[in-house]
């Protein structure tokens, strides 16, 4: 159950970030002034991917709550870093981002840590 909840949380987090990144890049750079925030809110309603991304975020938070209920805090929070691994892979394959050696090394370290958490 623990690993299932963790998987749901991590996949939902990664999906949310991917959708957000994809949609925001597509709509170009945004300014973040007072008017910028209002325009951002309007955009969230207009853009379907952004709404979907927020739904994913909510889903991931619910999974996190259920995980906190059944697993130790010292497991649940560090394990949530698994989203870095998934996001790095997805950023490379789906968003065609360039993954530098630092980022690859970081994701590999997180992967080792997650594997060790399971011990």
């Amino acid at each position, binding site marked *: 159950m623990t690993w299932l909840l963790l998987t749901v949380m991590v996949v939902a987090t990664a999906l949310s970030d991917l959708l957000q990144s994809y949609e925001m890049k597509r709509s170009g750079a945004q300014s973040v002034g007072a008017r910028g925030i209002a325009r951002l809110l309007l955009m969230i309603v207009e853009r379907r991917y952004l709404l979907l991304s927020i739904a994913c975020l909510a889903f991931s938070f619910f999974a996190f709550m259920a995980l*906190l209920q059944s697993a*130790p805090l*010292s497991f649940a929070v560090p394990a949530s870093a698994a989203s870095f691994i998934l996001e790095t892979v997805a950023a490379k394959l789906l968003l065609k981002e360039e993954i530098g050696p630092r980022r690859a090394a970081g994701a*590999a370290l997180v992967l080792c*840590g997650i594997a060790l958490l399971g011990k």
Partner: protein
Amino acid sequence: MPQSAKTYSLLALFLALRAFGNLSLAWGTKHLTETLSSHPLAYLRSLAHPFVAIGVVMLVVALLVRLALLSVADLSFILPMTAVGYVLAALLGRFFLHELVTPWRWAAVALIFAGAALVSSTPQSTTGSAQGAK
């Protein structure tokens, strides 16, 4: 350079709010009588538990503080710093919830902290499509 006292106090506030928000949420959900994942409505009912409600409020405020933090400091400064949260969670679990944190788990937390800090300190834009990135 983000050296100002305001930046560091906001950063400390953000880290504390998120860590203690998670702690409150963990404490609250562990004292619920029903299993959260069993029913969607269980989540709504769980908000009646004071520690769950306080935890959720603290996490929401943490998000707002993070927004304020982003207005005075660079994301590339904030992201690696927030990796400290993984270590804080292990410490709070150990000392407040009396969780058994084995040496293996401490090692795992250290690896995750290092990895997360490294991942988040990479350049912001490599695709060239983010026109606004300076």
